[in-house]
């Protein structure tokens, strides 16, 4: 039975590639090139190091085992790349016993590029650690158990979460929480690393302590069993292996239980719930009798966020902008993008500012300060990082959240250039607000108030460049954003994510090149000739607006004749 599942999985992988077209294959090759050093690298590390330096080899084994395990645990949650080609729900109607299903799914989960690479890398340990005799068996067992641990954990965690996440609200929440916790984990790691570096604790000592703690985790136990087996401490190795096997069995049992419940529980019908409305809606009137109420507010419909009534016109441009702003707050992926962008845009400049302050002396008029009075008043410029972070996440695929629903913009007979302009407006509003807030904050810390206006002008320039490039990529390499409505961890299929990443990298480079003139002007102003800074402000605004208009013209002109092509790119592939 397991063999049937493995063959099904192989067939699914092959058909997925056949449907995907050349972009997916290119992406897959690229991803393979990225991953290629990892597999032989891991293999070589585990195979060679222990033969030369047994102590370092043991540490390396621990690091690799724990690292690989952490990767398997975290990757499906954080990067939406879990392979979902074998969805247990699709097999629910087949007359399979849950045990057959679990064994089959486990076997299928072991098939694929990720599992293959992991297993190959881990097998390096057999070459590196296996002694002659019985110990060799234990070493092989340790490697296989580590592999099983990885696969079972990844499956168990995602299945259990899928069971919890039957409702749309829970899914939205989890996308948010998981992404933010990944971000926080990353930030914490950075801070800890920086704190430890100059501290009393020597780095090696710190590693050893960490290693001792990790040694008691399941993958750590597997690594310890590996080392013990290779050194002939067979009793200890057997005990540690038994402990790992027990964990694998426990996780497997947990997965098995969740799988069973997942298959026999019906997804609750999504009862239409009244949304908590914070603002009046024109047609949401409960009784038909309150139509006058609706008419009174009709001048500014409920789609428009109330604080922005003055900014958004009640036409195509305005309504697209209003819808985009609603989507930033409501679409799970966009919400995460904006929240992370906001966090980074505040944290990074703040970090630079605080870490470049010389000592505990309060900021006062320093010797070299031309503008303002702080030590490094021009640090206000770092607020511009916000543009970079906010923009490169959201600007390059502006139609992604519309997806196939873009048809409604096509059948509404208007100028598609207005769509692009509206989206630009919606992107500019939060981005410029963010930059303004951060630059004011940093000015307050450094005293560089005089730099704030220049920073805002430069922000317009950079945003113009980013939007110009973004409009181009948005119409020419659009892809639908996963909506998170059916499958939370459904990726874009193997390889496609990488192709998208390459396009985005190129686009960011292009935007960077467009910003070079402004950078040169500001550099001259800061280093040699201050009046250049005064010149830079209007130039930046004019440059940004010009770039934006040019981008809008190019993309809008193309889009006028090619709306059906954009719709095709945004629609999920059909087998027709």
């Amino acid at each position, binding site marked *: 039975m397991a063999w049937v599942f493995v063959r099904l999985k192989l067939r699914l992988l092959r058909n997925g590639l056949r449907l995907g077209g050349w972009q997916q294959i290119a992406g897959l090759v690229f991803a393979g090139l990225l991953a290629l050093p990892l597999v032989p690298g891991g293999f070589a590390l585990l195979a060679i190091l222990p033969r030369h330096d047994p102590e370092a080899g043991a540490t390396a084994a621990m690091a690799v085992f724990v690292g690989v395990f952490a990767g398997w645990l975290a990757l499906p949650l954080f990067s939406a790349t879990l392979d979902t080609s074998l969805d247990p729900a699709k097999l629910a109607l087949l007359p399979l016993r849950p045990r057959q299903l679990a064994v089959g799914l486990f076997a299928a989960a072991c098939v694929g590029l990720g599992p293959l690479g992991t297993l190959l890398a881990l097998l390096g340990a057999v070459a590196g650690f296996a002694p002659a005799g019985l110990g060799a068996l234990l070493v092989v067992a340790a490697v296989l158990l580590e592999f099983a641990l990885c696969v079972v954990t990844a499956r168990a965690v995602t299945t259990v979460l899928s069971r919890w996440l039957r409702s749309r609200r829970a899914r939205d929440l989890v996308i948010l929480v998981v992404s933010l916790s990944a971000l926080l984990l990353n930030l914490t790691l950075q801070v800890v690393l920086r704190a430890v570096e100059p501290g009393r604790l020597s780095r090696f000592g710190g590693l050893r302590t960490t290693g001792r703690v990790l040694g008691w985790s399941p993958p750590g136990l597997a690594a310890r069993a590996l080392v013990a087996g290779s050194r002939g401490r067979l009793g200890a190795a057997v005990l540690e292996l038994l402990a790992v096997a027990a964990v694998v069995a426990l996780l497997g049992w947990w997965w098995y239980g969740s799988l069973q419940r997942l298959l026999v529980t019906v997804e609750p019908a999504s009862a239409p719930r009244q949304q908590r409305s914070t603002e009046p809606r024109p047609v*949401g009137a409960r009784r038909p009798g309150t139509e006058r109420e609706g008419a009174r507010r*009709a001048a500014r419909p409920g789609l428009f966020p109330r604080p922005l009534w003055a900014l958004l016109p009640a036409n195509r441009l305005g*309504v697209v902008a209003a819808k985009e702003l609603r989507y930033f707050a409501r679409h799970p992926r966009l919400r995460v993008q904006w929240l992370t962008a906001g966090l980074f845009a505040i944290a990074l400049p703040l970090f630079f500012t605080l870490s470049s302050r010389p000592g505990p002396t309060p900021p006062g008029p320093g010797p070299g300060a031309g503008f303002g009075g702080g030590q490094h008043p021009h640090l206000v410029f770092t607020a511009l990082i916000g543009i970079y972070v906010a923009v490169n996440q959201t600007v390059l695929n502006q139609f992604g959240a519309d997806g*196939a629903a873009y048809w409604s913009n*096509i059948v509404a007979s208007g100028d598609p250039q207005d769509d692009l302009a509206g989206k630009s407006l919606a992107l500019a509003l939060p981005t410029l607000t963010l930059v303004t807030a951060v630059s004011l904050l940093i000015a307050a810390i450094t005293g560089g108030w005089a730099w704030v206006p220049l920073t805002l002008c430069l922000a317009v320039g950079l945003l113009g460049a980013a939007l110009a490039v973004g409009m181009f990529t948005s119409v020419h390499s659009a892809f639908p954003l996963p909506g998170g409505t059916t499958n939370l961890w459904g990726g874009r299929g193997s390889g496609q994510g990488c192709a998208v990443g390459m396009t985005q990298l190129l686009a960011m480079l292009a935007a960077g090149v467009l910003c070079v003139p402004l950078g040169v002007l500001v550099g001259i102003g800061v280093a040699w000739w201050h009046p250049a800074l005064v010149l830079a402000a209007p130039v930046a605004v004019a440059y940004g607006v010009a770039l934006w208009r040019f981008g809008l013209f190019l993309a809008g002109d193309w889009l006028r004749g090619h709306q059906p092509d954009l719709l095709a790119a945004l629609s999920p592939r059909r087998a027709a």
Partner: protein
Amino acid sequence: MNSAPALSLRGLRKAYGPKIAVDWLSLDVPHGCFFGLVGPNGAGKTTTLSMVTGLLRPDAGTVVVDGVEVWRDPAEAKRHIGVLPEELRLLERLSGDELLTYNGLLRGMDPATVAERSAELLAVLGLTEAASTLVVDYSHGMRKKLALASALLHNPRVLFLDEPFEAIDPVSARTIRLLLERYTGGGATVVFSSHVMTVVEQLCDRVGIMHNGRLIAEGPLDQVRAGRSLEDAFVELVGAGQSDTETLGWLGSSSGSS
């Protein structure tokens, strides 16, 4: 009143690789008509409607709606048409009333008119209670009714509906039917595709039967069915006939189950 037909197709063609989805299709639909396009799955109905509404570029042929050629002057043509596509891909994260506002303002309508009409449409379609619920939480029938409301919002001259009655409960279907009858009563034209022959027989004055990308019969309902029921006429024309059931001897017998 325009003397040209509401919809006129000439030599419309679309191929996906080697598969020809629509094969040199020509058709005229007069004004004020309730036209039903029927055909088995894969006959090319959805492809045809997509090309007619400007969502899919044809390989060849012309589409004229209300005297305007769709692929030469799409903006003008789209002003005259309303669309309910088969796959209800809506902006999931807007509420029902927000979606109507969005579509109305996209078309350059006056905000007050949009608010007034969407309130009425939502009331008629029984969606007033759900007006502020996000579309992602709507049921299939509610989504279909909302999509219909947004297709009618600008009072188009010609309405294209792809499978409007599929997976719809009888009450909602009746609401939609009454609304559509009222709409054509005012001289507007409806073109819709369907599998449900009884609905087509009840509603349509003209039908076209599509098979393998071609129109194999077209005309007034009574002429096409020629004394038979529409279903019989359809099956006969499409040529499904009696399939060879001799090879399925085990089917339904108690001995052959495994």
